[in-house]
C-alpha cells in the first residue's frame, strides 16, 4: 500500500530564517506531488504541484519554493520566512491529475515568530 510521510510535524521559526519541509511517498512510482497551505480555520490553498523530477508548477506568487530532487521526494523551502508564512502545510500525492484521488500527509505546523 502507498504511504506518505512529511516532516517535521511542528516547527517554530524566527522571521528571516530559512525553511525546509520534506515529504516522501512510498509504495508507488512517478506520483504527482502537491504542497498545500491551510491557515487556521480556513480552506486549502494549492501552492505547488509536480508531475515529475525537476518539474514544478507554482500556483500563487509567494515567498516559498519547491523542489523534487527524486521521484518520490518533494521539498518545500524558503530562504527567508515571513510572518505571513505561518500555517499548516500539507503534502499530497496522486496517480494522475484529473479523475484521481489526492491523498494527504499528516501536515506540518509552521509558526513564524
Amino acid at each position, binding site marked *: 500500500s502507498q504511504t506518505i510521510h512529511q516532516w517535521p510535524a511542528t516547527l517554530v521559526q524566527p522571521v528571516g530564517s530559512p525553511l525546509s519541509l520534506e515529504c516522501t511517498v512510498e509504495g508507488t512510482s512517478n506520483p504527482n506531488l502537491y504542497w498545500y497551505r491551510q491557515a487556521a480555520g*480556513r*480552506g*486549502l490553498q*494549492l501552492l505547488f*504541484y509536480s508531475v515529475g523530477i525537476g518539474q514544478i508548477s507554482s500556483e500563487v506568487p509567494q515567498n516559498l519554493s519547491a523542489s523534487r530532487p527524486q521521484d518520490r521526494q518533494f521539498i518545500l523551502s524558503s530562504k527567508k520566512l515571513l510572518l505571513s508564512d505561518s500555517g499548516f502545510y500539507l503534502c*499530497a500525492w496522486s496517480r494522475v*491529475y*484529473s479523475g484521481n484521488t489526492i*491523498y*494527504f500527509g499528516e501536515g506540518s505546523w509552521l509558526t513564524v515568530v
Partner: protein
Amino acid sequence: GESVGLHLPTLSVQEGDNSIINCAYSNSASDYFIWYKQESGKGPQFIIDIRSNMDKRQGQRVTVLLNKTVKHLSLQIAATQPGDSAVYFCAETDAQKLVFGQGTRLTINP
C-alpha cells in the same frame, strides 16, 4: 472555486441524526468530485468520490449526491456519531488540479 480566506461555516447536529453538508462548485466541466474529512490537526482524509456520469453514490453511512444542473454536491452522513466531528471539504477536478471548497465544520451535540 477556492475560498481559502473565508471562515468556515458550521453545522451542528444531534448525535444519531442524519447530517447533510452542501457544496456548490463553479466549473461545469468538472468530471470528478471528492469529499474529504479533516480532523483537528490532521491532514484531510478521503471519504467518498463521484464521477460526473453519476448522480448518487453510497458508501458506509455516507452518500454523495451530485446535481450537475445547479452545480451542487452534498454529503449525507447517516446516524451521526461523535467521531464524525470534523471539517468536511468538497473538491472538484479542474483539468490539472483539485480545487477545494471552503469547508464546513460539523459539530455533534450529545
